[in-house]
């Protein structure tokens, strides 16, 4: 964890991630509603809930009209989700655990930091999930709270993003 100038940056290597792909969000929502207990997120939104199995908390982050990312601290619910769609011709789950890393940034100057990483238009409000170019790479940013965001980044680029963040915070 890095902490400076009123900002904390924490890399969570333990998060489980999967890409939920679907042709029709409504139809899929009906099919897996019992598992999720909530509807899929609408455009550029995120949804928090708990899996029916194991009561594990999850976060769904919208990525595109036919994709959202599922994040939770346990791989079992994602595996259950994958199995529930194994025979589907309309949706699938692609596990991305380890390939996508989660970075939590919190503190009063969170927005200042994000403005120095990428486009202001890609900075989410609480409950939003926006994908944009940050530090010259593609990052999905989820607004968790007023001054707290989650950055989802390709593992191979995580070092680059972290170094950019550290260099920026050093000048705060």
């Amino acid at each position: 964890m890095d902490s400076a100038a009123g900002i904390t940056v924490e890399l969570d290597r333990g998060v489980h991630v999967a890409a939920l792909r679907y042709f029709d969000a409504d139809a899929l929502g009906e099919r897996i509603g019992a598992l999720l207990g909530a509807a899929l997120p609408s455009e550029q939104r995120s949804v928090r809930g708990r899996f029916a199995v194991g009561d594990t908390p999850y976060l769904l982050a919208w990525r595109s009209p036919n994709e959202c990312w599922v994040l939770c601290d346990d791989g079992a619910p994602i595996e259950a989700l994958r199995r529930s769609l194994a025979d589907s011709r309309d949706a699938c789950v692609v596990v991305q655990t380890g390939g996508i890393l989660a970075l939590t940034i919190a503190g009063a100057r969170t927005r200042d930091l994000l403005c120095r990483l990428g486009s202001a238009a890609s900075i989410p409000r609480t409950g939003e999930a926006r994908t944009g170019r940050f530090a010259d790479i593609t990052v999905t940013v989820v607004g968790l709270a007023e001054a707290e965001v989650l950055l989802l980044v390709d593992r191979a680029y995580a070092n680059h993003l972290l170094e950019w963040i550290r260099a920026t915070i050093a000048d705060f």
Partner: protein
Amino acid sequence: MSGRRLAAPRGSRIDRERTLSFLWNGRPYTGLQGDTLASALVANGVQLVGRSFKYHRPRGIFSCGLEEPTAIVDLIDGRHRTPNARATVVELAEGMVAESVNCWPSVGFDLGAVNGWFAPLLPAGFYYKTFKWPNWHLFEPMVRRMAGLGRASLEADDDRYEEVCAEADVVVAGGGIAGLSAAVAAAQAGAGTILITAGTATGGALGWRDDGELDALAAKAAQAGVRILTRSVAFGVYDHNLLCATERLTGGPRGPRGVLRERLWKIRARSIVSAQGSFERPMLFTDNDRPGVMLAGAADEYAHAYGVACGRRAVIAANSDSAYQVAASLGAAGVEIVALLDRRAHADIGAHVDGVRVLPNTGIDKVLGTSAVRGCVAVAADGHGSRPERFDCDLILSAGGHAPAVHLHSQAGGRLRWLADGAMFVPDGAAPGIVSVGGCAGVFSRDTAVAHALDVGRALALGFTVPSATPCGAGRSLASTRIADARGKQFVDLQNDVAAGDVGLAALENYRSVEHLKRYTTTGMATDQGKTSNVNALVLMGELTGREPAEVGTTKFRPPFVPASLGALVGRRVGRLYRPLKHLPAAEWHAAHGALYEQFGNWNRPAAYPVGGETLHAAAQREARTVRRSLGVFDGSPLGKLEVWGPDAAEFLDLMYVGTMSNLARGQARYGLLLNENGIVVDDGIVARLDDHHFWVNTTSAGVERTASAFEEWLQCEYTNLRVFVTPVTSRYGNVTLSGPKSWEVMAAVGFDAGLSPGSMKHMTMRESALGDVPLRVLRASFTGELSYEINLPVDATTAVLDRLWTAAAAAGGALYGIEALEILRTEKGYIHIGTDTDGTTLPGDIGFGRAIGAKTANFVGRRSLLRPAALDPQRFQLVALSPADGRTQLPTGAQIAASDPPTTPEGHVTSSFWSPELGAPVALGMLARGSSRLGERIRVHHLGERIDAIVVKAPFIDPAGSRLHG
């Protein structure tokens, strides 16, 4: 010009209690806190500050702002230099060191001034006409050395720069009274507003005056929440209302070393307000470039803002009513105004000044003095009337009228119109997303400007129709600022040494278009971008060609409005952040095992693992030899990986690849080439079928993002009926590859499932398996020609599995191998590397895939292009294997193949070339015209003047039967 410091109360920007020391051309001087370098130099009586670009004529300080064309200086901090700073906007700092540019040995005695003697040889466009015989290159070094401005630093910049993005409802460029009014109105109406101002505070051109209204507006701006960026200049408007500005974060030119120096602002705004004011237009008269000739408004600002008189006795050359205000203002400050020579007839003059001798219809015929003004001779502007009259003075002020700063408006695509009365170009209505207010809209009446700006700010905030501006308050000015029958050099563009005669030559040679005029004479180029020259140049061109200025028009204004430092544009992208670089999941493990890292594509990868002081070459040779004789362990994690899923996945992949993928059985894999719509080979890889509608796709390491994007584009734009998902999973899976005859032996020793043995699992098949609780996708495919297993596994398990395999491999005599060894191994086998052996012209037929194309009857991307005549040309370059005729000389990669010595037409080039440790001889691949039909032919390879004979041979060099693939 004999400048001096004026007594208080003059000098609203300076602090007389704080003295600053600085060095100018090696001599010590002092200035005051708040001075610019220019104001401090003037206060110290320094007149000569530089030499001109081409003729090395002596030049002084011409303006007081960012339009400065002549006071260009280099700022020096130890070994670091900041070139081409404008002394007029450089804030003076303690210990500052500054130098004149483009002069040797000194600004006072510059040998380059000899250029003036050869001026007839150096007219506009001289480099198109002269110095051609016997050869331009003979003269080029001398000409280049004689020309130019400052010198760039040879040292890396150790300061830091950053980029900040922002959004605003309204962004106002310019902090003068109009800009401030617009910002206040917008913010008070609820708009998120940003105001950008060049100075250390708001106020703009009036900022140095004691102005209660400005102070009140500044207070309102703060109250309304306007975000004010000081020391900032908006330099460019780009698509979709993106406004870019640079902000100086340190007061002095350098200040402390290694600091955050500048910030690049990228502001996306709903509306942009341009309020960048106007520039004063100079007068054209003979020797109007002498030190001591300057803009009238600038002299006024120096007097009142910095408490500096630019001279003792001034003559004002006027074409504008503003000259009369300056005469009164400077007179009050203690500068004697000897005469005001007005180019206009009496009837056109709308102003008056007491106690100053005014001569209407009069202009300057010539300036007396070379390195400083000693006087001038005035004549009737129309060439008739009274006798020439001499005036003794040390300062000549030029007040040719106003030139609104229409740059941002023009950059945004706005049109301009010519106002004949004011002799100026103003915005012709509003451009999309941008509105001009104040001086840059041609509104010079203060009350009108404020009222209009308030209306604009309010309308933008509330979404109302934006009121248009009516230019006013500038009075009458003549288009032409020069007298009839003027002789000698009257400089139109002081920075580029473009004189009226050069414009005349352009007209004579029919470079009449304003775009041609600019490029032929270079007027309007360089650091000042013609802020003081453009209007005079095009008016003159109009005069010479019988056209009105409106007919001549202006060139398109392009960013940047003011020079932007490369550091600001680069921001954080230096050193390790120069570009995004991908790192292996087992990066630390490789480093601990001696990896020599290099960048391949956008990956940081082991090139080799040197041991015992080996060179990279020696290590790669050892590694490649070990793979052939025993086995090697390779981290293939960067290999591109996509999951293609959906009911129509097979049909989709058939369309994407030259090969057919739909007839793959479950678990089978096939090599495929990817083409673009022009039939060009853009990537390759292996497709494996995991399930009926689920495929595993390997791409090249560097090509996966490009391939995924191309797949998405085809799905979203062309094959919209296909139900397919393409999901990149490169980072989800690590990849450990074992290659060599002992591969399976080692895997078996580690505990891999026996079903993966070569006897059970065929080449080009994929199996899902597990090692303990680690799930695996194992592909038998080979890029080395040896028995190989590509083991794909969850990325977090990569290091552990790699370590287990390496422990076993090391015990079996294996080696870790890197990219260099892989390149040797694949070249020995004649396997192509896309992007190395192919380029942006390579078609599949060129690399031996002609039969595959012929065999596939179904459609695929690029197919139609392969039927074009050029694609079927028998002379096309084709991939061949090459061996040196002497059996030992390695062919240089990139060397050209040609039948005769250069200069000649090449018939190919070497694409890959290595020393084969297995053969003890060089191996190479190359592209050769008609290559496939030239087997056995002797060819000539040329490299840096040497010729190497080579033979076209049959690939592969090793194991032509391919038996080693099976262990």
